[in-house]
């Protein structure tokens, strides 16, 4: 809403409001930045700084906004978008928005923005300058001390052979080792395969023998039982079992509600009497399970052991396994999975499958062992020993292989981590720091994970995995982002912003949760100390005030 006014200077008669008295020069040029003073020449018409309009100089600071950019009213609140210059003698001159002028709030330390209001602003410039000086000195001292510490840390890091500086060499070595191990692993696997073939064949043979033997044993066992039962039943010794002989055995009555009738007995015998042969083929199997008063068999059938009642004990012995499971879950899904390399799966899977089949076969053998008590012959035993040895060698090498593999992964990850413009944060890669709060411990393992650990003994919650540096454009390395943590109920996945600050000790402070499940924390570390600040030249002090 800016219009060119029809100006006739002779007719400017504004007597309703008067410009406040005082030094004309001061009033007219009030609020003008020192660097722009040359644009405000009282004897000449004023051109708005954006060039949009030229107005009589009397319109400058006349408490009416003429210029679109607000430049005609540097000393009043008339323009919503203008700027007022606080001279602030003894401190820094500052620009404040025009609408801070005359609003009853002291914004300039010299109080110059409140020239018309009734409130009294104390001149606080001197105090501010002192405070500023003190705080800058403190900062300088802090950064200076911090930089020393930083140098030490970095120096000690370089002497560490596992440090990042040597990581490439180390990595090469490890990869060399890995190749050798891989080859060895394959050899061991082949060896294992070959001896297992022999072992299995021997075992198979042994198993067959055992089974044959067992069948024979079973047959003779049955035969003995059958003869004994026949003799037992044949109370009159006529080598025939008659209806009344069998009828005594009421336990054989399938229908327990009524008596064991002759008809029922006959239906079991199939006729009025049977001889041994008939008994063997048609009767014995029918009644042997129910038959009582059987004399002691030659091989006692074991009493079925009663199932134990579920007891508190059995519950508690189960719960650790549950926890173990959670721990494993936690370990694999949260920690390991993020480091998992695809080609590693082969071994791990093999390894897994191997141990499983092994377990089942052992179980099976055990079972056989229980019932028939098989003894392997010496030859088979020997083969099994050899196979076991081959398996153990294979797993031994496998473990080594995995361990090296993980080392390589970690190193690779480390070497890809952006550890600051001068690599200065490399010493804290994978280092963990704790912050203790009322309810939780916050643990950040740098460039890795951030966790919230309940002090009440509850579980750990991942609040983020290392994501990226996320400081402002001009200072990217000011803040670290850990994202994609465990998802909140009814909320986002947890995340954390770590702001780095120069400090002598490495520590976390000031954890907050400004939005639900979006955390912030400050990390003080000498590594964030800045040599430039530490060495700010003292002579600039005078220039700045």
């Amino acid at each position, binding site marked *: 809403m800016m219009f060119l006014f029809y100006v006739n200077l002779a007719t400017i008669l504004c007597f309703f409001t008067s410009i406040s008295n005082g030094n004309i020069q001061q009033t007219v040029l009030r609020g003008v930045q020192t660097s722009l003073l040359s644009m405000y020449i009282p004897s000449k018409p004023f051109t708005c700084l954006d060039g949009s309009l030229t107005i009589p100089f009397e319109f400058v600071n006349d*408490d009416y906004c003429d210029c679109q950019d607000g430049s005609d009213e540097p000393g009043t609140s008339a323009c919503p978008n203008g700027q007022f210059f606080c001279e602030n003698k003894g401190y820094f001159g500052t620009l404040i928005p025009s609408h801070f002028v005359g609003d009853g709030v002291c914004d300039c330390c010299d109080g110059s923005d409140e020239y018309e209001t009734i409130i009294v602003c104390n001149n606080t410039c001197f105090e501010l300058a002192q405070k500023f000086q003190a705080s800058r000195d403190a900062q300088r001292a802090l950064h200076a001390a911090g930089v020393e510490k930083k140098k030490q840390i970095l120096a000690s890091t370089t002497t560490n052979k596992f440090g990042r500086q040597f990581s490439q060499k180390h990595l090469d070595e490890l990869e060399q080792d890995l190749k050798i191990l891989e080859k060895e692993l394959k050899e061991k696997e082949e060896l294992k395969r070959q001896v297992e073939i022999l072992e299995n064949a021997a075992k198979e043979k042994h198993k067959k023998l055992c089974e044959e033997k067992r069948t024979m044993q079973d047959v003779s066992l049955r035969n003995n039982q059958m003869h004994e039962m026949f003799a037992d039943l044949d109370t009159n010794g006529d080598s025939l079992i008659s209806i009344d002989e069998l009828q005594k055995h009421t336990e054989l009555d399938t229908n327990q509600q009524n008596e064991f009738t002759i008809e029922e007995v006959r239906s079991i015998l199939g006729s009025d009497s049977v001889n041994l042969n008939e008994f063997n083929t048609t009767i014995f199997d029918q009644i042997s399970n129910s038959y009582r008063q059987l004399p002691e068999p030659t091989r006692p059938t074991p009493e079925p052991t009663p199932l134990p009642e579920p007891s508190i004990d059995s519950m508690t012995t189960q719960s650790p396994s549950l926890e173990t499971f959670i721990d494993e879950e936690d370990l694999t899904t949260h920690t390991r999975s993020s480091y998992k390399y695809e080609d590693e799966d082969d071994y791990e899977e093999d390894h897994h499958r191997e141990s499983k089949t092994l377990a089942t076969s052992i179980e099976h053998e055990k079972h056989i062992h229980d019932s028939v008590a098989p003894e392997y012959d010496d030859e088979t035993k020997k083969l099994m020993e050899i196979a076991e040895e081959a398996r153990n060698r294979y797993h031994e090498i496998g473990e080594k292989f995995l361990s090296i593999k993980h080392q390589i992964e970690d190193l690779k990850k480390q070497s890809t981590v952006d550890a600051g413009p001068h690599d200065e944060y490399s010493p804290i890669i994978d280092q963990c720091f704790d912050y203790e709060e009322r309810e939780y411990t916050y643990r950040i393992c740098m460039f890795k994970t951030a966790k919230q650990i309940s002090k009440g003994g509850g579980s750990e919650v991942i609040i983020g995995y290392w994501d990226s540096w996320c400081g402002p454009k001009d200072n990217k390395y000011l803040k670290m982002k850990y994202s994609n943590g465990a998802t909140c109920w009814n909320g986002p996945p947890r995340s954390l912003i770590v702001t780095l600050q120069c400090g002598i000790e490495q520590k976390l402070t000031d954890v907050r949760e400004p939005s639900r499940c979006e955390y912030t924390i400050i990390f003080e570390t000498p590594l964030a100390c800045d040599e430039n600040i530490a060495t700010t030249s003292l002579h600039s002090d005078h220039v700045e005030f």
Partner: protein
Amino acid sequence: MIKFLYLISFILILNIPSIENVDRQNFKTCDQSSFCRRQRKYKPDTTPYEVDLNSMKTIDKGHLQFILLNTLKSNIKFQLDLYTLEHNSLRVKINEINPLRKRYEVEYVLVGEPKLVDVTFKKTDNNQVEGRFGETAKFLLNAKPFRLDLFTNDIFVISVNSKNMFNFEHYRKKSGSDGAETENNTEDNEDGMWEETFKSHHDSKPYGPSSIGVDINFLNFENVYGIPEHADAFSLRSTHDTDPYRLYNLDIFEYDIKNPMALYGAVPYMLAHNEHATVGFFWLNAAEGWIDVLNDKLNTKNNWFSRQNIFSTITNFFGTKSNNDNNEVPEVTTHWMFETGIFDGFFFMGPTPNDIFKQYKAITGSTPLPPLWAIAYHQCRWNYNDEDDVRSVNNGFEQHQIPLDVIWLDIEHTNGKRYFTWDTSKFSDPEKLQDDLAIYGRKMVTITDPHIKKDDGYHIYAEAKSHGYFVKTKDGADYEGWCWPGSSMWLDYFNPDIYKWYSQRYTYDNYKGSTPNLFIWNDMNEPSVFNGPEVTFPKDIVHYGDWENRDVHNLYGMLQHMASFKGLVERSNGHIRPFILTRSFFAGSQRTAAVWTGDNAAHWSHLKIAVPMLLSLSVTGIGFIGADVGGFFNNPDPQLLVRWYQAAAFQPFYREHAHIDTARREPWLFGDDNTRLIRQAIEQRYTYLPYWYTLFYKQEKQGIPPMLPLWVNFPHDKNTFKTEDLFMVGNGLLVYPVTEADTNQVAIYFPGENTVWYDIRTFTQHNGLQTALINVDMESIPVYQRGGVIIPQRLRKRRASMLAIHDPITLVVALDRNHEAEGELYMDDGQSYDYRQKQQFIHRRFTFKNNELQSISLDSTGKFETDAWIERVVILGYPKNPNRIIINSGDKQAIPLHSYQEATQTLVIRRPGPSVTANWTLTLS
């Protein structure tokens, strides 16, 4: 995180499974509320009710009394009282004579005993009494059958019981019990009459059925409005295939829109408007209510009207409509059902919209002028976590140069949801915090909910407990329920001692950490009881005076915020105007609190529904209202947030608020562009504050709310009767909030014959009675100043409204087709009662006529000292560049400069200069 787990546990207790929508299973349908089920099906062919005309007594001038009989139950007699009231209003009371139990008559709502005016009555025949009262009103009371017809300007507007649905359930003894009525009516033992169960909640109903139903019919009307609070259309929808609109104050978790379910507050007041008249019906009843609305055609040939003697009246009226041969007139039939209480109906006979506001105000009062800062911008969140957080939010507004007046603290600021306390680990020095905000002219609002944590160590609880101040169960024990703090109890504000005691909790001594810059928010006051039936009190709990919650339910929230208001008035010895925000409300709440539409959601549909919801509140007297900017639940995308800021900049109560589960959404968190757009919207609100403040003053005086449906200003423009995408701010601004995503163009209907509208940004003109396609971008808030209206603005920027009260004023004069305009400006100190007690205010009228702009005082009793002056006059629609402009004030004269833009016919007068308090004349030639 503990607190979230804690919340989760509540949610689990509530068994609220879905995050998206309300679980309707938790709330009753009409069919599940036994009285609604009974009343809704009550539709006899003839009414059994008759007035005994011989019983007529004149109790007072303007007060007639009759006996009303239920002919089916001759021993049950009712008393019918007719009161003719000032301002064209009629009150009708029907109550049982000698009931078994006294029936509840609502207290706290009326501003006083309504003033009677004389009635001229006569018996027109043996069956009818006619009464004339007020300027234009007339009633006809028909004895057999009982019916009451109302006329304004002799136009038939309302008929009571013409559908025979009047049905008054008298108190009775349960049949089978000692001395029970001998009438062997099976209806007396209908299911749910003597007890009912909803979900697991049992209502013992010790007094049995007591509901009242009645049909109120609006003749020749097609639109009825009001009966908030519902998230539904402004022009009420027919309920023929839905439940009736329900009035029962409830905390509905994640409410759905476009349905008649009850919400947080209730005003049993309905208006009807057509091009001839505006009328209203208010049933003063605080029990659970249900209202059916049916849009019908009334066939004047074949119904009872033709058998009645008043048919001529109708035909006379409808005869004025030419060619209406089919003898059908529109009619809105409404069926009102309340669970208990008496029939206490107020009929407002208009006939204009502004008359209606005055008439309703005379009964229930109006919203007093709020402090200036309360109508500026508020920043809220559940929760600003601690003092540092509050300071950083304040700094954010400073840094981004966004005006702000108030920062709010939700429940987490307290020590474990013990209201009137602070969590000192987060707020160690709340007084200092408030003082520091006050340096910037800013205030703070804290929350005080009505549930009191059951904890002997909590001083409020301990004291209330020892005095027996809590609401009781039917067995006389303190009622205990669950809310934010866990196990809680509720104060019984119905007891005057408790009311007073509660108000005293707000003294600076009692409320430690409060300062004069702290104001109050009453939430959860329906009340919300997490484990109660329908998330509120059981109906059979007992309040002071032995009333059941059934009788008084909808008053509870209002009593709390009334007591809070009283507390804040008294803590300043009656000097400073309070500010209270409440979620629950009833008729009369407008006198002491602002209201917001509760827990809405960050959806475009919720932005859109805010307009009809706010209009429904406005027309029923609740004028200081708003919806949470951005939507309470969920995260708005930046576009929705910006649009919401823009829309709400032109709605009365302007507050951003967000749920604890949402991401931060302070205005500067969405990139520079969005920050700028939000800043612009808030700045625009501030430029119009002088206008808003004047409108709020008008509301106090005349009951006219600041936010209005179009038909209030354009009562004859039929196109506006269902409008809910557009609204007016006062009589001068037409607002079309953009409520859809990615909008490039909107179709805006400009109302009013011979009316011209000026785009407030470009000054482009639009003619009335036309729909125009308007291009919009993200900068656009389509707002138009009406030709003929002068609007005072403050175009200077300030960080808070209270820092601007002496800043100069710009007058924007929008000329009508006759090159005339008028407007008003009200000003005072912005916060004290000096405007009432010491007449420290100015109220100016500006008129533009015959090329002269004049400022005169509208109220010479007012005096207010201010440096404010007129810095600019902008005249829109001025036809030519004037040669000369002279301003005269007293004996002073000046010739201010001006500029003129021909393309938009806009004249800007530079520094006219007079004080806003002066009389002056500006002449153009």
